[in-house]
C-alpha cells in the first residue's frame, strides 16, 4: 500500500482520523459542560475518572454537579453520539449497497415502522401499566422498525433474489402504507388527551430522549456490535460498487451479503430511532461529507462516518438544548440548519467534480 499515489487533493487518512477523534472528545466535553449549570472541563474529567474506580481525585466540587453530570448530561451526550454514529453508518451502508447517492437510513421502511410503533405506544394505555418498569415507546419503535424492514425485504424477494429496485419500491409503498395507518390511528383515537399527542409530535420530530443507563447500555451494545459488523462489511461494499453481477463474478455471495448489509443497517437505524425519534439528514449527509474528505473506500469511510456522525449529532443536540434555553428544540432542525450549509460549502469548494 505504500506504493499508492493518492490524489493530492485528498487529505491523508491518519490525519483525518486523529482530527476526528480529538474533535469527538472535545465536542463531548463542551456538550457536557454546557447547560443550565456549567461544569468546568477539568471537573468533568475528574468526576468521570473517579467513577471508573481507578482514580480517586479529591471531590472538591458540589455533589449536585456529579449527579447532573452522571444522571443527565453524560447519558444524553453518549446517547447523541451513539445515534449519530449509528445513523451515519447506516446511511453509508445503504448508499453503498443501493449504489444510490440519495439513499438514507429510513429508505426501506424503518422510519414509518418506528413511527407506527411509537404511535401505538403513545395512544394505547399500556404505558400506565408498564411505565413504572420501562418506557414502552423505544421498545415498540425498535420492534416496529425491524419488523417493517423484514416485511419490505420479504415483499421484494422473489425467485430467491432481492432486486435493488424491488427493495426500493417495496420500501416506498410500505412507508406510505404505514404512515397512512399511523394517521388513521391518530384520527380515530379520541384526542381528548392533548399532552399525549404533543408528546408524540415531539418524538416524531426527533430529539435525544433522556434514558436511564440500563436502556442506554442496551442500545450501546446493539450499536457497537452493529458497527463492528458494518466495518467487516466494508470490503463487501467495495465489491458491491461494481454491480451485483460483477460481484458475483468475483465469488461474492451476493444475496447473503445484501441481506447482511440490510440487517446491520436496520439494526443500527432501529436502535438509534428507539432513543432519538426520527432525526433526518445525518444519515444522508455524513457519508457524503466523509467521501469528500477521504474518498469512497468503505473500510475507511465507515469508521470515519461513525466518528463524524457522533460529532455532528452531539453538536446538533447541544444547539437544540441551548439556543432557546430552557426550551428544547427538535434536534432535526439543527442537523439540517447547520449540516446543510456546511455540506454545500465543502461541495462547492471541492476542486474536482464530486462523483460521490
Amino acid at each position, binding site marked *: 500500500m505504500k*506504493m*499508492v*499515489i493518492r490524489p493530492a487533493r485528498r487529505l491523508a487518512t491518519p490525519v483525518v482520523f486523529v482530527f476526528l477523534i480529538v474533535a469527538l472528545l472535545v465536542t463531548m466535553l463542551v456538550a457536557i459542560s454546557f447547560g443550565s449549570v456549567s461544569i468546568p472541563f477539568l471537573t468533568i474529567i475528574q468526576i468521570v475518572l473517579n467513577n471508573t474506580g481507578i482514580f480517586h481525585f479529591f471531590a472538591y466540587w458540589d455533589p449536585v454537579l456529579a449527579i447532573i453530570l452522571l444522571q443527565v448530561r453524560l447519558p444524553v451526550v453518549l446517547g447523541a453520539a451513539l445515534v449519530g454514529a449509528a445513523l451515519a453508518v447506516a446511511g453509508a451502508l445503504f448508499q453503498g449497497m443501493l449504489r444510490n447517492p440519495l439513499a438514507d437510513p429510513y429508505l426501506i421502511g424503518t422510519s414509518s415502522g418506528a413511527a407506527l410503533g411509537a404511535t401505538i405506544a403513545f395512544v394505547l394505555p399500556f404505558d400506565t401499566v408498564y411505565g413504572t418498569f420501562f418506557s414502552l415507546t423505544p421498545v415498540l419503535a425498535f420492534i416496529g422498525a425491524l419488523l417493517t424492514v423484514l416485511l419490505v425485504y420479504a415483499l421484494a424477494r422473489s425467485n430467491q433474489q432481492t432486486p435493488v429496485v424491488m427493495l426500493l419500491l417495496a420500501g416506498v409503498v410500505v412507508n406510505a402504507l404505514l404512515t397512512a395507518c399511523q394517521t388513521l390511528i391518530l384520527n380515530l383515537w379520541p384526542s381528548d388527551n392533548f399532552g399525549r399527542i404533543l408528546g408524540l409530535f415531539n418524538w416524531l420530530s426527533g430529539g435525544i430522549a433522556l434514558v436511564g443507563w440500563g436502556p442506554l447500555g442496551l442500545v450501546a451494545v446493539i450499536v457497537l456490535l452493529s458497527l463492528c459488523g458494518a466495518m467487516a462489511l466494508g*470490503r463487501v461494499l467495495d*465489491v458491491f*460498487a461494481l454491480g451485483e453481477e*460483477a460481484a458475483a463474478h468475483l*465469488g461474492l455471495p451476493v444475496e447473503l451479503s445484501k441481506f447482511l448489509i440490510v440487517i446491520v443497517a436496520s439494526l443500527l437505524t432501529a436502535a438509534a430511532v428507539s432513543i432519538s425519534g426520527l432525526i433526518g439528514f445525518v444519515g444522508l449527509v455524513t457519508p457524503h461529507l466523509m467521501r469528500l474528505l477521504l*474518498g469512497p473506500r468503505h473500510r475507511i469511510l465507515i469508521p470515519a462516518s461513525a466518528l463524524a456522525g457522533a460529532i455532528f449529532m452531539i453538536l446538533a443536540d447541544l444547539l437544540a438544548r441551548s439556543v432557546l434555553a430552557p426550551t428544547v428544540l427538535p434536534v432535526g432542525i439543527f442537523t439540517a440548519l447547520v449540516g446543510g450549509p456546511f455540506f454545500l460549502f465543502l461541495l462547492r469548494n471541492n476542486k474536482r467534480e464530486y462523483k460521490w
Partner: protein
Amino acid sequence: MVEKLIATWGQSPLLQVQHVTFGYTQQQVLLYDVSMQVLAGEFIGLLGPNGSGKTTLLRLLSGVLTPQQGQVLLEGRALSQWKQRQVARRVAVVPQELHMPFDFTVEHMVSLGRTPFISSFWGSRQSQDQAIIQDAMQVTGVSSLAGRVFNELSGGERQRVTIAMALAQQPLALLLDEPTSHLDIKYQIETLELVQRLNRERGVTVLAAMHDLNLAARYFPRLLLFQRGVVADASPAEVLEPDLLSRVYGIQVRVGILRGSEHLSVLPPTLVDVPVTLEHEPFPMVHVIAGGGSGALMMRALADAQIPFSAGALHIGDSDHALALRLAREVLTEQPYAPISPEILQQVHDRLQQVSLLIVCPTAIGPGNLGLLQEAVQAARRGLAVILVTEPSQTDCVSDISTLPSLSVGELAAFKARDYTGGLGFQCIEALLQAGAIVTTSVASSLNEVKKHVVVSH
C-alpha cells in the same frame, strides 16, 4: 505453450456446455439444447447477431445463470457443485462496460480482483496479493495509472483496468463480453492484442463475444457462430462464409481477402448494386417444413447427399432453425414465439411454387404453424409432390413407403397425436394424403424418394 497445457490439463475440456436449455422465464426458451466445449488454452471468438444469446451463454458459463436443463461443466464438474468462490478463482469475466458509481482508484479497482482469494469478511491483502495486483497492472500496462481515478480514464484505459482486475483473479479462463464494442479502432486492436498475448504467454483460455466480424477473423483461430444455438464452430475460413453469414445475420455480405491483408474481411453490401441472389448456384428444388427438432435427421441426410434445399418457416431459437441456418441454402425465418405472419406465409407460398418437392417433417401442429400446413395443402393440390415423413412407428407395417389406401391405423393415430389444433391440422394431413402425398417412415426411404424427384426435375 501447448506442451505445458497438455501436461497440465490433458485433453479434458476446461469448460463444457452439455445440452443446455435456458430461458429467462419458464415459458420463453432462449437457448434450446446447446452443446459446446472449450479446451484449455483455446482462443475462441463467439459471433452472432444481437439477441442471439451470446451474452446469455457467457453468463451460463460464468455460473451467474443456471440452466433449466442440461449442465455446464468446469474442469469436468458441474458448476452447481462448485463453490462460487472456487469458480471465481478459475473463471473471470470482463463485462462490456463497468459502471462504477464511486471514485475508486485504478489500483483499488484491480485489488478487488483478489476478492475470491481473501477470506470472507475480516481478511486483508497479503504481500503476495499485492505482488499479483502489481503484476496484473504491469501486464495490462496500467501501472502508470495506479493512482488515477477509474471514472476519469478513457474507455480504452478503463477496459484495460477491467482486464487487469480479471487477471488479478488469476483465472484459467477469461470470458469477455464484446470487449471492443465501444472502443475506437486503436483501442480495439490494443485490447485484442493484450488478450491474445495473455493467451499466448500465460496460457489463459479466452472466449470472447464479438460483434466485429473483421476483428474476429483477424484474431481468433476458432469461431463459434451462434444464433440461439451453435450454427457453426470452425476456423474463420469456414465460419465466415457469405451464405452462412447472410442467413444468420439477415444481410448480404461479401467475404474476401483485401490486397495486402492476411485475414479474411467481411464487407457489407455495396450501396450501388442491389444484392441479388447468387445465380450460379443450383436453385434448391426441395423445400423442408419442420420444427421442434423433427427435421434434424432429414436435413442432415439431404446435406450429406448434397441435395440443396430450403427450409421454413422456422422460428428463431428452434433447434431446427439453428441447424437449417447451417445446412439449408435458404431459410425462411420467423421471430421467436410469434405465429407465422402473413408476409412469411407469402414467402413460403412463393417458395413452394418454385420447388418441385416438399418434405413435411413430423412436427407438432399448433395454431402457430397451421398456416404452413395449409400452404402445403394448396401446393399439393396444384400438383406439387409431397413427402410426409412420419416417426418410425412401432406398428408392423409391411412397407416403409405407403400412400393413403395402405396407411395403417397406427400411422394415422400418430398424425392425430401431433395435432394440437383440435382437428384442423389433421384435416390438412388428410388433404395432403388425398392429393397424393407419399408417407415415408425412414430417412433412407425418404431420401430415395427425394432422389427420384430431384433427378426427374433435372
